[in-house]
Structures are given as structure tokens and as C-alpha cells.
């Protein structure tokens, strides 16, 4: 599995995580998918809807946020491909909580943000039996 993303969009994801630091930031990945190929074209950064005390290690996008994401994807002629979120001062690997709440099919980009600086992003997909996340390779496309 490979997730293509252009470098500017990946930078925007990193910037969103840095702006949210020390809290978690999150939003939707918008793009196009074909069998065997998935490309992120843009993002929709959103406000973390969790309560103040939990935003350092939890994020929530509400049902209203989801509808906003679907409408924005429709407006751009794209699909919702997944979610991006940051892990402040923690590794960019999915937690058990991430897995419990994960949707099938979606790509989950997780960015580690250390001391306010985005370090690295990895992308994950839930396995068919929901038992684990499987990493998908991020292929960064240089913006021309």
C-alpha cells in the first residue's frame, strides 16, 4: 500500500501539527483513489473538539466536522481519504486508542511533533479484522 502526497501538502500537515502543539491537531485528507493507488491532494485542518484537559493526548472530530469534510471533498471533486493528526512529544505510531476508534479504509497520517517541531509523518491503515494498524508507505511527490 502506498499513499502519494505532494510535499506542499505534507508541509501543511506538519504546520498544522506545530500550530496545535502542545495539543493534538487533526483534520481530513482529501484526494483521489483508484484500486492500488491513493493520492492526497489537499487537507482540511480542523479544530480539536476534545475538552481542554484532554487535547494534549486526544483529538476529536465531531459528526458536524465529518459532514464539513464530506462537503468540502464534494466541492473540490475529491474524496475523503483519511485523517491526519499529531502526536505531541510521542512517536508517530498508532496507539491502542487510535485503533479502537479507527475507521476501515481510511489512511491515518500521524505526525510526531517534538518540542513544537514536526519531525516525521507515517501513514497507517486498519487491518480488515480491526486487530492492528498496518503501515502504508508515504511517497512524497515534489511540487513543481
Amino acid at each position, binding site marked *: 500500500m502506498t499513499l502519494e502526497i505532494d510535499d506542499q501538502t505534507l508541509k501543511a500537515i506538519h504546520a498544522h501539527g506545530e500550530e496545535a502543539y502542545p495539543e493534538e491537531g487533526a483534520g481530513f485528507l482529501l484526494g483521489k483513489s483508484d484500486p492500488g493507488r491513493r493520492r492526497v491532494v489537499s487537507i482540511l485542518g480542523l479544530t480539536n473538539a476534545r475538552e481542554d484537559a484532554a487535547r494534549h493526548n486526544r483529538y476529536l472530530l465531531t459528526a458536524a466536522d465529518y459532514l464539513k469534510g464530506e462537503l468540502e471533498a464534494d466541492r473540490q471533486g475529491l474524496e475523503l481519504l483519511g485523517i491526519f493528526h499529531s502526536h505531541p512529544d510521542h512517536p508517530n505510531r498508532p496507539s*491502542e486508542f487510535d485503533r479502537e476508534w479507527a475507521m476501515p479504509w481510511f489512511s491515518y497520517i500521524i505526525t510526531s511533533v517534538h518540542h513544537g517541531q514536526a519531525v516525521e509523518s507515517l501513514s497507517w491503515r486498519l487491518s480488515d479484522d480491526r486487530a492492528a494498524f498496518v503501515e502504508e508507505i508515504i511517497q512524497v511527490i515534489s511540487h513543481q
Partner: protein
Amino acid sequence: MPALKIPTPLRTYTNGLAEVLVQGVTVGDAMQSLVAQFPTMRQYLYNGEGQLRPFVNLFVGENNIKDLQGLETPLSDGDKLLLIPSIAGGCDA
């Protein structure tokens, strides 16, 4: 029959259908009708105790069933039921 709108990540289990016609006179019936038609959906919608997973939100029109009668909320022919996920996660800390 009521129609149930399917969110993008679950359409892979409805053969790509964005909307599914369901049978029943309550929201609970409609959900059972959905999983009867598409059995692989069950594991994504229900936990091991048979309860809807926490990310599942159901709206009849613009009204969340939590503000109505929950899964006992009545449905009529032509009603539109929306399945809308909320998305959550976070690091171990």
C-alpha cells in the same frame, strides 16, 4: 422504505453504494437490515457486546437519534437516515 446514507470509509462494504434502502419501523430495525444485507459491516458498527461503536452517530434528517428515542426512534417510508462517524484518537500518554 427508509434510505440509509453510508459514509465514505464504509462504502467499500456496500459495494460502493452511498445509500442503501433498509427495512424496519425503527432506527434499530434499519441498522439490523443494513448488516443483514452487508454482513461484513457488523464488525465495524458493533462491538463484541453487540453495542454500536462509539464513533457511530445516527441522524434522522437533521436530528441525532440521541435527542430522539435512540434506536427505538420510529422511521417512516421515505425517511432519510444518516450514518455519520465521529473521528477520534490520540497518543498513549
